[in-house]
């Protein structure tokens, strides 16, 4: 972990993952981009109006018998709702993953390096996409999304308003995949899991619950 100073307020900004290039200062909400050991202030993150997630930076859990901790988050909105992508780091080897949270469904997924991902204009809901060695996936939906909030540290520039196309896919045995079409194409493969199976700790307190 390295700790750098916020260029705006001087507060420490922690980077636990080497892959992180973007962060939001937890004190002054300045968004910063990391150039090696220098931080460049690029903007401010506006507060979220409604918040009802059980997770927060620092929430820990278990996936595939390995414990992880949440270190960042991107919240994206689309026409019919929103979802959260929580950036997680696994304690033992520093591997990072994403905990996707949408309408009570939770999935942990990891970026895969697959050059054969089809272009967005050739896929439709119901299309079959093969991602070896993970198997067959069916396209569930294709959505235009934009980032409405981000916090913590992230491996991508997640400024408010950042636009992308997001494709959700489902496979057999609770498998899932998601493809993000932005300036670059990134694909993730993972598994749906029930809330209780993650054995979460340090959850956010939700008013009234």
């Amino acid at each position: 972990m390295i700790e750098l100073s916020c260029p705006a307020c001087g507060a420490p900004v922690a980077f636990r993952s080497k892959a992180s290039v973007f962060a939001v200062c937890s004190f002054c909400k300045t968004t910063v981009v990391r150039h090696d050991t220098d931080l460049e202030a690029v903007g401010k993150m506006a507060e979220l109006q409604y918040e009802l997630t059980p997770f927060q930076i620092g929430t820990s859990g278990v996936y595939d018998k390995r414990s992880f901790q949440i270190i960042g988050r991107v919240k994206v909105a689309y026409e019919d709702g929103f979802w959260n992508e929580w950036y997680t780091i696994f304690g033992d080897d520093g591997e990072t993953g994403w905990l996707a949270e949408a309408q009570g469904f939770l999935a942990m997924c990891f970026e895969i390096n697959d050059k054969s991902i089809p272009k967005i204009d050739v896929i439709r809901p119901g299309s079959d996409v093969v991602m070896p060695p993970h198997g067959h996936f069916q396209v569930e939906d294709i959505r235009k999304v934009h980032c409405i909030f981000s916090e913590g540290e992230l491996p991508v520039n997640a400024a408010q308003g950042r636009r992308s196309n997001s494709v959700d896919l489902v496979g057999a045995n609770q498998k899932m995949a998601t493809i993000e079409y932005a300036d670059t194409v990134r694909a993730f493969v993972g598994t749906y899991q029930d809330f209780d199976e993650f054995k979460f700790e340090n959850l956010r307190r939700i008013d009234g619950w």
Partner: protein
Amino acid sequence: MAGNSGEARDHRKEKPRVTTFSCGNCGAPVTVRYPGHSLSAVCDSCYSVIDTSNETFQVLSTYFKKASIQPRIDLGVRGELMGKTWECIGFVVREDVASSFKWEEYLLFNPYYGYRFLTCNNGHWSFVTMIKERPERFAAYADFQNKRYRLFYQGRARVHYVLGEFYWRVAMGEEVSMADYIDPPQMVSVEDDKDSRVWSVSEYLEPKVVSQAFELTGESIPRTIGIAPNQPSPATATWRKVGPMWALFLVALTGLQVFHCMLAKNIIEFRAPIEYVTKMDGQFATSDAKLPEFTTPEFVLDKDNANVEIDINADVDNSWLYVYGELVNADTEELFTFERSIEYYHGYEDGESWSEGSKTTSIFMPQVPGGKYYMNLDFDNGGNSQANMRQSFNVQVKRDVPTFHNYFWCLFLISLYPIFAWIKYRQVEVARWSDSDFSPYQSSSD
């Protein structure tokens, strides 16, 4: 942990902060418990659907005022089901487009666990969880997690009435095509609208579970009608257990019987034709009447306490033969007596041939001690077409013959309960499927 984070708190009493705004259509106050999370809410006064995804609270649709339908579970009420606390935030009445049959759906919410539905169909409750996994669909069934579900319903469902708030933009009159597949107490359902397909699993809940969870009283407690598609039936569960056991017993019993028959020696110990003189008329012997007699030579019945079968075969033809016999143990004088009439009549009357009686008879003696035996036979006859003809009948004594008596009795006794269980099971299943167009108990829909 989640759902009851921190110290034990009573979720039924604790209420979240709510947001209230004025309905853009009628101006009445509308309350939203989970703004931002809920994408739409219905105005209690004018039934307008309002977009609650942001603070502009735009009216999505207005609707003519309907006669209000009272939800059984009030909006905002919390209850514990399946080990978690749920808040009822939305109420939908949907109807089958073809039949107008209506059922109720309650949207449940827990910020940790997301959304569930509680459906009330003919007074029967089910707890519905949306799933991401896609069951494999076939014409008459669907496979999900190594179980086969039978198609029960296929049709279109229309939103008839809405109250509360929803995580999608709800619209009255909206239609989806639906199919339900059952394997009680579960049901898997698929809903298709123009751009999405949603699968869910429903679990049957006993009425009192829901009444207790949401403290329903009086009119709110529905009266159950019939048997729900996914209602577990004790009779079915019993039959599922008894049926295979029965089959197993039948196979085992039959195997035993085959084994028993193979072991039976089935030896003919004595066999002889016995002559008699025919009579045209005659009467059954009275005690003082003197009958023709025959005493057989001695023969040996080996093996202790095996059975004996005596077969008599007479060529009677519209006549009768009467035999009184004694099987006598030559050493102990123990007697085994029998008495039989052999009659066979036949003819042709009104264009039909008929027959009655039989030319053979068998006498079965279950336990006869081993030893030397002979047989005394008295016999009489009558009804023959000619008198004073020489005729004969055959007598044979068989030792250790295979028997089916015990087998059939066991079969009967073993089958009594399974047949009863099957009848009960069938009654329930016929009733369950009576509401379905896909009943396996009817040849076609009527």
